[in-house]
C-alpha cells in the first residue's frame, strides 16, 4: 500500500471514529428515565446528558477503555495497521447494520472486540506477522470477555440489593398515595444526579471510537496532541448525537416510562453507573445495554414481578453470537482484502 493511500485510510478512520462517537450518543437512551419523570425540560435534559456523555468520553480518553481497545488487548510488540483498523470498523459497522435491519439488539462493544479478534487471528495465520499464541494479551482479552458475563450479573445483584434495602428501610413504610408522591418527587431530583453520573460513565466506557484513535496513536499514524484533539471532537460529536439524533428514541421510550416510579429509575441508573465506573476504572469495555437489561431484571425480581424469559433467552443468544459472528465476518473481510492485494 502506498503512503498516499495510507494517509487517505487514516483520514477515513478518523472520520469514521468521530461518526462512531456520534452514533454512540445517538443510540444512548439513558436519558429516557429522566425525561419520563418530567423532572427537566426535554431540551435541558438533552444538553445536560449530552455534555455528561461527551465529558466522560474526553476525560477518560488518556487511557482506560480506549487504551485497552486500541493497544493493550494486543500481544507484546504488536500494533494495529491502518488496514486492520479499517477492517475492524467496517466489519463491526456491517454487523451492527445487519442486526438493526433484522431487529436484533446487538452490542457495539462486543462487535468491535469480536472484529479485532477476527482480524488479528487472520493476520497471524495468513500473513504470519505474529505467532497466534502471542498475538493477544490473553489476560486482558480474557478479562474483557469475562467482564461481559460478570457485569450484567453484577448489575442484577446490585440493583436487587439496593432496591431491597431502599424498600425495607423506606418504601414499605409509605402508606398513602400523597406520601408516595411526595417521596417520589424527591427521588426525581436525585435521579437527575444519578443520570448525569451514569451518562459520564457511559461516555467513559464507550471505547469504540477512542479505541480506533488510540490504535492510530499507538502505531504512530497520529501524534498525541492530534489524538486529544480528535478525542475532544469525539466528545462533541457524542453530545451532538444525543442532542440531534437520540431525541426521538428518548422521547419514544420516555413516553412509555411515564408510569414508572423515579425511585426505581434511580436504583437502575445508580447500579448501571457503578458497574460502568468499575469497568472503566479497570479499563474493561462492557455493554451498557446488557447491564441495563439485567438491572431492570434485578428490580423486577426484587418486586417479585414476572420476567419475560422467552425474550431474555432470545436476547442472550444474540449477545453470545455477536462476538464470534463479528470475528468471523472481520476475518473474512480481512482475508478478502488480502486476497485482492489491498493489504
Amino acid at each position: 500500500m502506498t503512503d498516499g493511500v495510507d494517509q487517505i485510510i487514516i483520514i477515513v478512520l478518523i472520520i469514521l471514529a468521530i461518526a462512531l462517537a456520534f452514533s454512540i450518543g445517538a443510540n444512548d437512551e439513558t436519558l429516557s428515565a429522566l425525561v419520563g419523570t418530567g423532572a427537566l425540560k426535554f431540551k435541558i435534559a438533552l444538553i445536560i446528558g449530552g455534555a455528561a456523555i461527551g465529558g466522560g468520553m474526553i476525560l477518560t480518553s488518556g487511557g482506560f477503555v480506549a487504551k485497552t481497545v486500541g493497544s493493550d488487548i494486543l500481544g507484546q510488540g504488536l500494533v494495529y495497521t491502518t488496514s486492520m483498523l479499517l477492517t475492524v470498523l467496517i466489519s463491526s459497522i456491517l454487523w451492527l447494520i445487519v442486526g438493526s435491519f433484522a431487529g436484533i439488539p446487538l452490542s457495539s462493544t462486543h462487535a468491535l472486540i469480536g472484529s479485532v479478534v477476527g482480524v488479528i487471528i487472520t493476520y497471524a495465520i495468513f500473513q504470519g506477522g505474529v505467532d497466534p499464541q502471542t498475538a493477544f494479551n490473553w489476560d486482558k482479552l480474557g478479562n474483557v470477555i469475562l467482564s461481559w458475563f460478570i457485569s450484567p450479573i453484577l448489575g442484577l445483584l446490585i440493583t436487587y440489593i439496593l432496591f431491597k434495602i431502599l424498600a425495607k428501610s423506606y418504601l414499605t413504610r409509605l402508606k398513602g398515595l400523597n406520601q408516595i408522591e411526595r417521596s417520589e418527587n424527591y427521588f426525581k431530583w436525585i435521579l437527575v444526579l444519578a443520570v448525569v453520573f451514569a451518562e459520564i460513565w457511559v461516555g467513559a466506557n464507550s471505547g469504540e471510537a477512542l479505541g480506533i484513535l488510540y490504535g492510530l496513536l499507538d502505531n504512530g499514524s497520529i501524534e498525541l496532541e492530534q489524538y486529544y484533539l480528535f478525542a475532544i471532537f469525539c466528545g462533541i460529536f457524542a453530545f451532538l448525537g444525543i442532542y440531534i439524533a437520540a431525541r426521538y428514541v428518548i422521547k419514544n421510550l420516555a413516553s412509555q416510562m411515564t408510569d414508572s416510579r423515579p425511585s426505581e429509575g434511580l436504583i437502575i441508573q445508580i447500579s448501571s453507573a457503578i458497574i460502568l465506573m468499575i469497568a472503566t476504572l479497570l479499563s474493561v469495555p462492557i455493554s451498557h445495554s446488557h447491564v441495563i437489561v439485567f438491572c431492570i431484571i434485578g428490580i423486577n425480581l426484587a418486586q417479585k414481578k414476572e420476567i419475560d424469559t422467552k425474550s431474555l433467552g432470545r436476547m442472550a443468544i444474540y449477545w453470545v453470537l455477536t462476538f464470534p459472528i463479528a470475528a468471523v465476518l472481520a476475518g473474512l473481510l480481512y482475508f478478502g482484502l488480502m486476497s485482492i492485494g489491498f493489504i
Partner: protein
Amino acid sequence: MIREYEEKDLQKKSIDELTHLFMDIINKQNLVLIEGIEDLINENHEQFEKKLNYVIETTTEVQVKKVFESKIFKSKLMFSKSDRLKLFNKINDIKNIGEFMANRMLVYRIIFPDKEFKLHVSSILASLKLISNNLAIAVNFIGTDLYKAHEICEEIKEGRRKMRKLEFQLIQRLYHYDMDYLSRTFLYLKDMVEDIMMLADHIKNFAEYIQFLTIKYLLFK
C-alpha cells in the same frame, strides 16, 4: 343543598383535596338521588321530583372538575397523574349514571304494586347508600392510607354481593305480578331495578380499581 365554591378557593387546593371534594359532592348528590327514590316509595311525589331534578340540574361539581383538570395537566407527578385522572373520571361517572337514572325516573309517575315490593326496594336502597358512603370514605383514604382504602373496598364488594341477591329476588317478584308485561309500570320498575344495579356495579368496579391502585403503589412487606 351543596354549597357553591369560589374558583380562587379551589385553586388553592391540592389534587388530592380536589378529589376528596369532588367525591363528597358526588356522594351527596348520590344520597339525594337515593332519598328521592325513597320519597317515591313513600308516594311523596313532590319531594321525589324536586330531589331528582336537583341531581340533574346541579352543576357544583363542574367547577371542581374544571380546576382539577387544569391542575392535573400541569402536574409534574408523571408516574401517578394518569391514575389520579382516571380516579377522578370514575367519580364523575357516578354523577353521569345518577343523572341518567334521574332522567329516566322522571318520565312517568309510578304507583308501586304492593308494600312488599316497596320494602324490598327500600332495603336495596339502604345497601346502595351504604356502599356509596363507603366508597367516599375509601377515596378519601387513597391519599393517606391505601391499606385502609383496600379494606373498605373489600366491604363494598361484599355489600354489592349481598345487594345482587336482593336485586334478583326483586326482579323475580316483578315478573310474577299479574300485570301486562308491556305496561309502563312494568317497564318502569324493571328499568329502575336495573339502573340501581348499574350504579351499584359501577361502585363495585370503582372499589376494584382502588384495590388495583393499592397493589400498584404499595410495596408489601
